[in-house]
């Protein structure tokens, strides 16, 4: 098991390295110059040169890359020209905010998705199944800016139950932020719900046809016990994987939702950095998002292996 995790960790480091190259390369070929960005359009050429020299931008690209990477690893993520502050504390604060939003969405769609998926599987090809399957499919196709706008129109503008914008102070506590997390949380949950429902339904339908479920029934176990001990244990395995991989997206990929509600999360931060051509901030944020994705995948793999005794750890 530990060998299996070590191997996966090795792959993970490799993936992150590769991504860091791509991110760095992409930011250096982007039009725009840190020096002119920082100093403004009317700065003298000499001042720009001095700043470039100070930032190491006059060195070869490979040297720039290795310097950047080693600084990143050591925790020195540089200064953001557009925010005129250290990058790392800002990114981590926004990451915390994204985690809060992810938590709220997660707590809504995972239990509900599993529940609906199970109902659909157990009532296969009846009206509850059709309703759930068609309904969840409809939400898969609905972009967040559409569903989010609807939610705002209904709950914020029409009913005035909840705030329409979530532009909280980035340092707010979870309790303070909570009312502002509900609408964006529902928006995210609606999109993810369908994946959980469909995965739970299809794997449960498969498992219900397995010989060992017949065995469990013909042992005379009560139907509830058959479901909880024999069916769920196996049918939720693929769902666990989908959910765990989804965590990466949930934390790092909410650019649209966060922008729509103007919520100060990491996705919103990345968008802001791109708008401002803030290369230092882009690099730091993008690489962190990559790391979150890769860790989520690792968690999914390990979780699957732990839950499934048939997996050989190679």
């Amino acid at each position, binding site marked *: 098991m530990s060998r299996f995790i070590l191997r996966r960790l090795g792959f993970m480091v490799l993936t992150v390295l590769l991504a860091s190259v791509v991110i760095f390369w992409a930011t250096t070929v982007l039009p725009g110059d840190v020096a002119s960005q920082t100093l403004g359009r009317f700065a003298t050429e000499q001042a720009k040169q001095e700043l470039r020299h100070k930032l190491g931008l006059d060195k070869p690209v490979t040297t720039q890359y290795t310097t950047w990477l080693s600084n990143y690893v050591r925790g020195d993520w540089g200064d953001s020209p557009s925010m005129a502050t250290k990058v790392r504390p800002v990114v981590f604060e926004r990451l915390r905010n994204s985690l809060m939003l992810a938590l709220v969405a997660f707590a809504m769609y995972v239990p509900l998705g599993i529940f609906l998926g199970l109902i659909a599987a157990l009532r296969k090809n009846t009206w509850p199944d059709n309703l759930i399957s068609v309904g969840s499919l409809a939400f898969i196709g609905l972009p967040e800016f559409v569903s989010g706008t609807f939610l705002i129109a209904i709950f914020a503008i029409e009913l005035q139950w909840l705030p329409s914008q979530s532009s909280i102070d980035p340092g707010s506590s979870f309790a303070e932020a909570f009312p502002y997390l509900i609408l964006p949380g529902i928006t995210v949950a609606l999109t993810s719900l369908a994946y959980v429902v469909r995965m739970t339904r299809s794997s449960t339908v498969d498992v219900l046809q397995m010989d060992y479920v017949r065995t469990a029934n*013909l042992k005379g176990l009560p139907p509830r016990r058959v479901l909880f001990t024999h069916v769920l244990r196996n049918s939720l395995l693929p769902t666990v994987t989908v959910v765990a991989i989804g965590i990466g997206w949930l934390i790092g990929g909410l650019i649209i939702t966060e922008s729509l509600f103007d919520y100060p999360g990491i996705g919103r931060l990345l968008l802001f950095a791109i708008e401002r051509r803030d290369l230092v901030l882009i690099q730091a944020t993008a690489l962190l998002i990559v790391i979150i994705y890769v860790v989520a995948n690792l968690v999914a793999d390990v979780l699957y292996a732990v839950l499934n005794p048939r997996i050989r750890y190679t």
Partner: protein
Amino acid sequence: MATIMQGPAPSGEAAKAPRPVFEIEGLHIDYTTELGVLHAVRDVSITVHEHESFGLVGESGSGKSTLAMGSIRYLASNGKVTDGSVRLNGQELLGLPAKQLRELWGSSIGVVYQSPLSALNPSIVIGKQLAEVARQHLGMDASAAKARVVEMLTKVAMPDPEAVMKRYPHQLSGGMLQRCVIAMALMTDPSLLIMDEPTTALDVTTQAVVLDLVAELKREFESAILYITHDLGVITKICDRVGVMYAGEFMEQADLRGLFARPLHPYTLDLLGCVPHFDPTPEKRSLVTIPGAIPRVDELPPGCIFAPRCEFVEEACTIARPPLEEVADEHLSACRRWRIVPPPAEYLREATAALRTAGASAEQGGVLVEAKDTEVHFKAPKGVIRAVDGVDLEVRVGETLGVVGESGSGKTTVARAIIGLTPATGGDIKLRGSSLARTTGKRPRSTLREIQMVFQNPDASLNPTRSVGDAIMRPLTLLSGVSREEAKRRAQDLLRSVSLPVSYFDRLPHELSGGEKQRVAIARAFAAEPELILCDEPISSLDVSVQGSLMNLLMQLQVDKQTSYLFISHDLSAVQHLSDTIAVVYLGHVMEIGDAVQVLTLPFHPYTEALLSAVPLPDPDVKQKPIRLGGSVPSAMHVPTGCRFHPRCPRFLGDVCVNEEPPWREGQGDHRIYCHIPLDELSRLQTGTLVFSGAEPAAGSIDYGEDDR
């Protein structure tokens, strides 16, 4: 005629009438499908007594599993029992509330399934799965349940029960798992035990051990057993009474010996005739074939449902459906003409024909393929897998070499090395005296044409998106280099030669039955006019009657085209039926090889002896000494020293077997045995391993003999 049915009761306790435990009366089961309502089981009745085991025999589609599962009301949601009565210990099961029914399942009714691996939950340890039954029905707490599980596992002769309980299903072998499932089914001492093909998924040696166990448990427990199988040989080991099902109805019911000695329904007679008779003579005869196929239950003929395929049909048979009636003492037949159904021996002589004599071409034809010291070793992370480890074989022109062994013996890998799909890592394979390149990529097309292969599973070996015609034309255009028109003409001829209608040319594989698909695969193999066809378990996954007709087809094509076969099977009956010479392989090495008659008569290699003793023969009068192999085939990564069979050998001598490779002992002709024990000593030890009833008994003078099963 009825007098032949008399004789001592099979159980031997004629004194008091045994108590009926499980009674099914006039049962009807329907399935609602897109095609409408299908009457899958119609008006079926059986009675099973305590200590008795009732064999339910039939081919796929006969409704045997539907009957068994429907009788305890476990049916798919579209299945329904529409009429009849099912009583367990006098209690009516139909109409019983679901909750009470569940209390019977697992307590009064135990079930053993076909594939033990899929019948157990893959993510729960064995001990917990078994304990569940004890906790549910016997009201035991965790520790009492655990003790009960240990007790039951000990009863099914499981070595080290405590360790087994901590294992997951995938960590145990098939035989071990099936013992666990049997232990689970017997946990509550059930009144009824349903066994649904419990040994079909197991190796023949493991099957023998499990069958012994079931026979022993049958004496120990009072349970009435409903034993479902397609295998007439297995029936003889376990069952007291037998019911033969066909398309949802019983054709015949009788006690075991009565049924085999004197079947009174043509379908039973045909079933007995289409499995190879174990009979080591050089004469190669055809098997009985049943024309047509089992009718679909929504397309049943108006009269007797077997009439369209029946040898003895007359007009009256096609008008009204004959009922199942007691025509002799305890012997029920649904045939109007049961009086004229001939004794099996007589029928076999008439309905089958001698096709050829084995070994006839030994002098004339010469050697086609010769494999010397063939080795196929695979590199694995933790060592070398010696799948084939020094095999010498010869296939002569126009003859069949049968290769037999348990799974893991390397028999398939040998074939793949010969055809070049898996490159040999050592040795030399010659075709007509010239060495073959090790991979297909390096062999010229003319060589590729000369060796073809038929695989076990036609579903996987036929491309589902290519029509039958395309599949057969492919080798013609690719290897024989003929034009498309010519290829099409020849492909149609080939379809005819494998007895398929030419209209199948444009069909896709999924529109064909399993047997028809395998016929297409055979036609494809013959298309390139090869010299040698490697048949890798080509009939194992098919119904017995289909197996019979395919064996006839293979033999007829061989006679017509003088093609040589390498026939691989775990089924010794099929191998002996088709082969001129037989090679018995174990763990990548030949243990015994030679003329088929020589291999199957004294002396035997101890491994051959164990296989012969394990093969369930469809003849209750054959006596087989119970020689059983412990454990399973070891991993080819850790081949035992000396004689590789020594850890399981029932005739193990001692250090010599552990330390020294055995010598090849030469018998008659080219018969060779790889063993430390001299041949005359083997002959002496093995007398009585397999004793046939001798000359075919004349009708009316059946000697039941003593029952030593």
